[in-house]
């Protein structure tokens, strides 16, 4: 599990891309990384990118709801990007999609592992906690 954070200073936009499983065990770390970025960059728009999340339970809903409360106090918004089908079901069940817009990030908007050429002020924070990766797509 890891989280990569990219900050776009001009738009006060923070994109957090989560990799791996999002459960009670991993949520604590992801939460602290995102909250630190929000504090440091005075974030108004937080995009949580789920394209690389391999598993999520209600702990993930708690994480989104908590960030929603935080960002709402700063009159900002939280967006949920690219949730895979098995995560979409949990999101819809929770109703969190009524508070946070579900968006599609295309490849150009997505922070990737390669060096970015654009001028946006960006920081990447990453920490591998778990080297074993599981692909829930495979049964």
């Amino acid at each position, binding site marked *: 599990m890891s989280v990569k954070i990219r900050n776009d200073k001009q738009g006060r936009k923070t994109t957090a891309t989560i990799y791996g499983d999002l459960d*009670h065990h991993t949520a604590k770390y992801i939460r602290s990384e995102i909250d630190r970025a929000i504090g440091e960059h005075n974030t108004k728009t937080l995009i949580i990118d789920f394209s690389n999340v391999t*598993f999520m*339970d209600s702990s993930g809903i*708690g994480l989104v709801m908590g960030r929603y409360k935080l960002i709402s106090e700063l009159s900002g918004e939280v967006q949920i990007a690219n949730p895979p089908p098995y995560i979409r079901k949990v999101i819809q069940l929770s109703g969190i999609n009524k508070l946070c817009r579900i968006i599609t990030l295309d490849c150009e908007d997505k922070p990737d592992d390669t060096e970015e050429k654009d001028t946006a002020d960006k920081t990447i924070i990453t920490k591998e906690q778990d080297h074993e990766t599981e692909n829930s797509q495979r049964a």
Partner: protein
Amino acid sequence: MKQKIVNELKMSFPSLSENERFSRLAVSGFLSQLNPRIDELSEIKTAVSEAVTNCIVHAYRNTTGLIFMQVRIFDTSKVYIKIRDKGCGITDIKKAMEPLFTTAPEEERAGLGFAVMESFMDRIKVRSASDKGTTVIMEKTLKTREGFV
């Protein structure tokens, strides 16, 4: 309809959050013999994760205890999962199962664990006694095959 147990898994592990992932992978590994559909398997994994997390977060709050898990496969492709703890118990099960009800809002719990288990599994039964512990039984019949061979 008569149904026969064709395989069974029993295990126990301490209530460490590291075991949340392990427990759902164990169930998913055990059920792979049924060649389940990806969506059904991910629903089962999510339900297991909810029940196990509840033991860790609520039942054994501030302590560590054992979590008991039992999985049965029936010849009808029915999967039976029992997750049991010897923790604090639930005083009002009906209330606890209401969507958005949580006793730990300050820990960013959403109160959706039981709602997820109910919606992702065919059946759920909860038994609990104060200071004795809680048992969650869930069942789901897989659509993949006509029966186990």
